[in-house]
């Protein structure tokens, strides 16, 4: 097994490179992704190696980046679109919801919308406004799209390749606060399917589901809880639409308690969906209501105070206390 240590940013870069080598129909398009290598350097060096026809520096218009990727998909190309920041995806919202999500259906399956929309999302990097948002629920709500998120370099490396190979359109959410954290990457074998959740820490008392940046927070909370005698099972959802419910149901059935951790505001969020779904499916196993630890129902704040907005280990532990104390 050839493993190597690299950052998530590097893992994405290597994954894109491997996908482009494997299939000449794979193109990259986005703002500043060529010479600059993207504002996060995810596409660093790829234009030099694959040329300007395959790594396309786009004029600055997100709707056109996605809209022309639709046309390229109709022509048989697989375009990996980079939206520079989460908060800049909204100009492309119409193309994503009205066209990317529906054209396969509207053509009775004739058009394959094999495109990947990379979305650096979530906050925690001290950015200015519109650079720290969690828009995943907008897309998860829309039939025809799939939404995934990586939390480790190994998943980043493999999931981006799996997403590019997949025939459905995929919103690929990258937790930008984890771009520069290192991890082991297995270059030979994907860890699991693109739409599989993973139990990343086993436990007995509480199931904790997180994705993206919050997986690390959940794992740290689980460590802290362990010291106090509470055993938390942490699940990285990985696929946000659809959810891998089987893994989650098995865990909640075992633990009887559920805490969901997300950076997004709570209303109509993925955490809300999970709470509703798992409450219904695991009703007789639950010893406490499913709790969500979310951001607040306010716009993303100035980043000097973002750590009050994003779920922290302590806020997560408060929720753990609440589900543990429910019966007493």
């Amino acid at each position, binding site marked *: 097994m050839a493993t190597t240590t690299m950052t998530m940013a590097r893992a994405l870069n290597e994954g894109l490179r491997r996908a482009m080598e494997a299939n000449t129909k794979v*193109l990259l398009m986005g703002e500043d992704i060529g010479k600059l290598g993207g504002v996060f350097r995810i596409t660093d060096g790829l234009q030099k190696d694959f040329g300007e*026809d395959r790594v396309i520096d786009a*004029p600055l*218009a997100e*709707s*056109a980046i996605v*809209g*022309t*990727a*639709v*046309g*390229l*998909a*109709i*022509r*048989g*190309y697989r375009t990996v679109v980079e939206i520079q920041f989460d908060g800049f995806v909204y*100009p492309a919202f*119409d*193309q994503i919801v*009205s*066209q990317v999500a*529906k*054209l*396969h*259906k*509207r*053509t*009775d*399956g*004739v*058009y*394959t*919308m*094999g495109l990947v929309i990379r979305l650096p999302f979530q906050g925690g990097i001290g950015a200015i406004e519109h650079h720290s948002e969690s828009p995943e629920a907008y897309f998860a709500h829309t*039939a*025809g799209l*799939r939404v995934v998120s990586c939390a480790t370099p190994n998943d980043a490396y493999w999931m981006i390749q799996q997403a590019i190979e*997949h*025939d*459905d359109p995929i919103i690929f959410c990258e937790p930008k606060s984890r771009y520069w954290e290192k991890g082991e990457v297995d270059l030979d074998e994907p860890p699991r399917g693109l739409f599989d959740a993973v139990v990343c820490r086993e436990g007995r008392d509480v199931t904790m589901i997180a994705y993206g940046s919050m997986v690390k927070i959940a794992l740290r909370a689980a460590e802290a809880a362990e010291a106090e005698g509470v055993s938390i099972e942490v699940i990285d959802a990985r696929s946000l639409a*659809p959810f891998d*419910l089987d893994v989650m149901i098995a865990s909640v059935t075992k633990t009887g308690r559920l805490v969901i951790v997300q950076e997004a505001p709570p209303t109509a969020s993925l955490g809300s969906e999970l709470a509703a779904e798992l409450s219904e499916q695991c009703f007789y196993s639950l010893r406490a209501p499913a709790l969500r630890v979310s951001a607040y129902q306010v716009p993303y704040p100035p980043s000097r105070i973002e750590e009050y907005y994003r779920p922290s280990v302590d806020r997560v532990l408060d929720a753990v206390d609440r589900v543990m104390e429910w019966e007493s």
Partner: protein
Amino acid sequence: MEDNEFVQILTPEGQRAAHPEYESSLGRDEVFGLYRDMVIVRRLCNEATSLQRQGQLALWAPLQGQEAAQIGAGRALQAADFAFPSYREHGVAWCRGVTPKEMLRIFRAVSTGGWDPQTYRYSVPTVVLGDQVLHAVGYAMGVQRDGAHEAVMTFFGDGASSQGDVMEAFVWAASFNAPVVFILQNNQWAISEPASLQTRIPLYHRAQGFGFPGVRVDGNDVLAMYEVTRRALDLARDGGGPTLIEAYTYRMGAHTTSDDPTRYRVDAEVEIWKHRDPVERVKALLTHEYRMKRAALDTVTEEAEAVAHQLREDVLAMDSPDPLTMFDHVYATPHPLVERGRREMAEFVASQGR
């Protein structure tokens, strides 16, 4: 916006008009073919309006007045080219071989698409204004990468010309020199809003600001539409980049069968445009210059009647789809929630004893 700004080689009276850059390359049989196309699409459009009035269609968007713009552009396309319509381009659909029955599926509300776009090399209707214009440019970028000698065409209206997606498509097409021809059918009205609300300059002038040629054509002159479009397609195929063609025309009927144009425009305006009819001028040309007999022209009318009759039969035979088909093709690969929905609906329907 004077009429004399546009390319016209056949006058409303059916007389040839000299133009410094364009002349008709078509002989009698080809002109007759364009006449046949226009008569048939006008007739099938009338039949569709009747079907809607009789409760057989959810909606219809009539094309009357725009036959020449659509048939001229549609017939200029080569087989390998690909076109992306908006929702009123029944004439272009006809040119691409889409059957009238397939055109009406979306309006019968039995489908959200209608036909196989790869077979006809003609995409499905796009109702969100301007979205398809970007798809055309993206497709054209694919053609470039394939090194193929093909061109791409897309249709939108004076109303959609205000859409950001159309502006973005112009930027992309210019920057990447995409082999695409933009056909802007300026039919003067976006439902109730006049073209003057969308623009303060002739719309074809916009192309210049983006760095590619724009040309205004008498959109009711099928010969001019054909020649101008053909040249623009050749230019695109040969690496010359995009062209904007403004087909200056008029929507003789309502926006759709749900619209009432008497609330926002005067009869006198419609009267003026009746004298610029796209079909009558070709009929006059065929009669006077080519000396075609009434009987020969009548064969087309009869054929159009037969098409309309067949269309009516086909539409009436078009039943509601099986409700479970709403779960087909949502994704290209199996999806647990779609399959769950399919299962739940099947069980529910069975429980109702239906």
